[in-house]
């Protein structure tokens, strides 16, 4: 008890310059205590690692020797990467992946959302099925697709043969490997984007549709004149999230192709992982991380600008 009054008095004294006394001072002290702990944690597990990444990217270091042995080389890693073909290709593959996944996930997700919000029965069932791939471990779904895509006996090719359609070598052909991996990620996330778009679509007041119906507007006209302008902010927001996520792709490619064949699917984070943990060029991997970070940041800022101008307009 005596201890408690003493600490309260101490706190009161401490916060008095801010004009806080008594109960208000106690509340503020608790506020500072909690935010202090939050910042302490962020310092250790977010800010420090980030600074470390920037610093290490300016050195030559394999992460096995002590950090003190890291040799400072300035921008050497960055200038090396600027002329590194393999790294350039990984960025190209990253964008290829992101564009294809974006079109598939957003396109199919929006299409499904529009259809499912417009049917009268079995909406819940449709949502249940479409959403289920999203919650499954990506390791499991990537393995299933990899096995199903076997060119000889895989159910994909056997079905195509049965239908008399041309078959594919799927993940084993450099030309089709990227598309095959993207196919899995579209399957996995279409239902997720459907659910996000359904939220936006169902927020459009029914009265608007009724009015359009009375005015004799067709479904396409209704969509372009009423639905689209109203869901556009949500659409842009979902787009930003999609692009940020897809540029960081690792798991699916790592499991399904390991970057191959002939490095045709080697994306940035995968190359980063191999550079750091297979080739032990850890500092170079950090330089890649920093570059990808700025690419994502630039794209985010760009898309946020579009989002803002959309609000203003």
């Amino acid at each position, binding site marked *: 008890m005596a201890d408690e009054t003493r600490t309260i008095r101490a706190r009161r004294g401490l916060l008095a310059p801010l004009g806080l006394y008594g109960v208000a001072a106690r509340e503020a002290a608790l506020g500072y205590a909690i935010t202090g702990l939050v910042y302490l944690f962020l310092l250790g597990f977010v800010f420090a690692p980030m600074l470390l990444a920037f610093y290490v990217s300016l050195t030559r270091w394999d992460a096995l020797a002590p950090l003190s042995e890291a040799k400072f080389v300035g921008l050497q890693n960055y200038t090396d990467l600027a002329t590194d073909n393999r790294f350039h290709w990984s960025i190209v593959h990253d964008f290829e992946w992101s564009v294809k996944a974006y079109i598939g996930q957003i396109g199919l997700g929006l299409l499904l959302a529009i259809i499912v919000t417009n049917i009268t029965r079995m909406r819940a069932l449709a949502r249940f099925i479409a959403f289920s791939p999203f919650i499954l471990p990506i390791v499991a779904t990537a393995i299933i697709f990899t096995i199903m895509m076997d060119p*000889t006996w895989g159910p994909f090719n056997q079905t195509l043969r049965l239908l008399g359609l041309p078959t594919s070598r799927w993940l084993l052909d450099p030309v089709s490997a990227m598309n095959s991996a993207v196919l899995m990620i579209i399957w996995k996330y279409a239902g997720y984007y459907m659910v996000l778009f359904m939220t936006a679509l169902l927020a459009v007041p029914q009265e608007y549709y009724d009015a359009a119906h009375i005015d004799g507007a067709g479904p396409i006209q209704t969509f372009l004149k009423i639905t689209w302008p109203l869901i556009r902010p949500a659409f842009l927001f979902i787009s930003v999230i999609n692009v940020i996520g897809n540029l960081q792709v690792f798991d699916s490619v790592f499991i399904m192709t390991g970057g191959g064949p002939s490095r045709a699917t080697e994306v940035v984070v995968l190359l980063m992982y191999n550079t*750091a943990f297979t080739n032990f060029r850890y500092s170079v991997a950090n330089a890649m991380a920093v570059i990808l970070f700025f690419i994502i940041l630039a794209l985010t800022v760009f898309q946020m600008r579009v989002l803002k101008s959309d609000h203003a307009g």
Partner: protein
Amino acid sequence: MRAKVVSLAPSRRRMSGGRLLGEALSYVFLLVTGALMLVPLLWMFVGGFKEQWEIVNVPMVWLPAYWRWDNFVHVITRSPIATGFQNSLIIVPIVTVLQVITSVVGGYAFAKLRFPGREVLFVGVLSTLMLPGFLIQIPLFVVVVQLGWLNTYQTMIVPFLLTPFGIFLMRQFISGVPTEYLDSARIDGSGEIALIWRIVFPLTKEAAAALAIFVFISHWNGLFWPLLVLRQRDMFTLPLALFTLQGDYGTYYHHILAGATIAVIPVILVYLFFQEHIVRGVTLTGLKG
């Protein structure tokens, strides 16, 4: 950000002939898409019971002649799957519970406690929200090595005790709790912990549940971080164990599919029971992708 609940009330539009045709086409499209979405899962379930030749046979063998439970017994007793399951079952609930607690407490401080500089400090937390995971985790690996935390539970738990996203999400919802409730409880002599537990938490339960679901799913399924910091088989999480199984078993597809089934079943069960919560939770946390 306000909570939006996906309403599944039937559409009030009247049905004309054209609309009826449109609706029929919609059902056909959904039927085909739905079937395509379920096929890989069904193929995995059935494949886990087949013999190897039944999987690689041309033409396809739809159902196994004999349902081999042995595949599952084999995978559980001889592969890292069981250990992985056990480790995930220890790690993931701990991360989930602790992260929800820190998010509620942190969110409460930023939403309801009055102190100078609060907004600036909150913006500081927000600024880390969009940082990509790899930028943190690749250097964090070095920190973990220096601490001697490779192959430990704490390396899977401690870095995720608190996330800017969790604090951000809970702050948004706790802001909606009327401050008068809190002040009158304070006048009645309630301590701050009691305040959070008795007033704040019950009023924001739904958001906390959404956060819990989000944390649980992402940690149950995550591969990148375990791949970096867990190098001993007895420490593997379930996704890492399954990934290793694929490497170890090569063409023993029936065993790989049985392992995948074991990894998938608990998630499916949770999904069946908490479907509404999960879908709503993902909508609330959707901005995290």
